[in-house]
């Protein structure tokens, strides 16, 4: 991955930086120039909640090459408190224990390696909480 492309997304991947529409309250992640709900262009900086719930998920058995050493792994759509939904791996639990409605917490993890000589890529994954 080209470093600048990776670097640009660091505020979102490392720190969950988002923006909240000043007019309608919609939280945009990643930030946008124009609110897709009300059209406003004024936002306040906010940080996403780290707590959420699994809405749907799958287990990836056939993975892209940069993820093949991790397969099989679970990926789901998690709705964070506040309403933003993210696609994320669900880790640190047996694959057959994951279920819709499960509470999870966002953690900072290594996501992928860019080949043997490239950069290590970090970001968010979710782990179940009891």
């Amino acid at each position: 991955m080209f470093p600048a492309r990776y670097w640009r997304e660091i505020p979102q991947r490392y720190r969950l930086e988002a923006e909240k529409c000043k007019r309608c309250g919609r939280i945009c992640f990643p930030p946008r120039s124009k609110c897709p709900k009300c059209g406003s262009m004024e936002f306040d900086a906010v940080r996403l909640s780290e707590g959420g719930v699994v809405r749907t998920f799958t287990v990836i058995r056939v993975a892209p090459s940069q993820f093949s050493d991790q397969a099989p792994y679970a990926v789901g759509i998690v709705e964070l408190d506040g309403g933003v939904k993210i696609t994320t791996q669900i880790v640190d639990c047996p694959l057959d224990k994951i279920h819709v409605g499960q509470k999870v917490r966002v953690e900072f993890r290594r996501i992928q390696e860019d080949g043997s000589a490239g950069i290590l890529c970090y970001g968010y994954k979710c782990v179940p909480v009891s």
Partner: protein
Amino acid sequence: MREVAVIGVGMSQWGELWKKSLRQIFVDAALAAIGDAGVDKIDSMYVGCMSSGLFVGQEHLASLLADYVGVAGISAARVESACASGGVAFRSGYIEVASGISDIVLVGGVEKMTDVSGDGATYALATAADQEYEGYQGVTFPGLYAMMASDHMRRFGTTREQIAHVAVKNHKHGAMNPRAQYPYEITVDAVLKSVLVADPLRILDCSPITDGAAAVILCPLDAAKKFTKKPLIKVTGSGSSTDTIALHDREDFCEFAATKRAAERAYKMAGVGPSDISLAEVHDCFTIAEICVIEALGFVERGEGGKAAESGLTALGGRIPVNTSGGLKSKGHPVGATGVAQIVEITEQLRGESGKRQVKGARRGLTQNMGGTGGSTVVHILEVA
């Protein structure tokens, strides 16, 4: 706006075409369409192609292909909207003829997918998802559709067997299509025992990697009789819509809102509804997709899509035959060509040229072609003039 007719269709054999280059595959289909239409000139051309850059390292495609079709000098443009590229190209050609800007327009679609490794093809296809916020996390395309399938099963009680019936039905249709990549029948048991790709979807739930092309010729309806003695097929509805390309940004993970909107626009333009459609070609890139699509098109109620394939409702001889060509599943899915090939199948069906898989008395057909997980969709309605 002028009324527009499809007066020629052409389609090559689909499959792993090792001996043929992208340009040759396209030219074969284009010349077949030109011959079928009986035209001696082309005013303009649109090419649907998702990713010739990643698949064969060739961009600037429309000019290259116009040159090799032997019509260099005409206006030509490539259209890209992921797996909906072909359908959107057809809409572009339709609008150009309807507007009066051009009279004879060639619309082709092409993809040459086997010149890269399986991993290379997977990478190219994955670019139709949100690369920074879906692909980055390790989700694949089968994975995204698998999450739709899980959602549909949980909310509507759709069974794994019902989903498998989509593949079984489409292979049964495809077995009657000599141009199909995999023209043979499969069983529910074979689907359920095939390799897991992303739970609950298995390899026989997925459309294959395919080389192929398709082409059609459009002209004003009132001029069409000059060229062809075949039944004239009129485009009566065209609708297009977009949605978020990230699945997680949608309110509902197994409802194709863009398909719903595109269909509403096409139905309104044609002055018809779902019950007026004789047959449809829809985007079954994965089995679950066909289930959600026929719900969005209004052929069945929400949540009932799983029962449709199982009960035979969408099979040849059923109330609304879907994917008589074999669909993407059996016929193959050269992504940029798929939307144009859907027009080819409907045109041949309405002309009564479909042989063993002919829908008797077909008068009005619908095509639905979508990109990614439904971030773009285009719907057309064709009728016997």
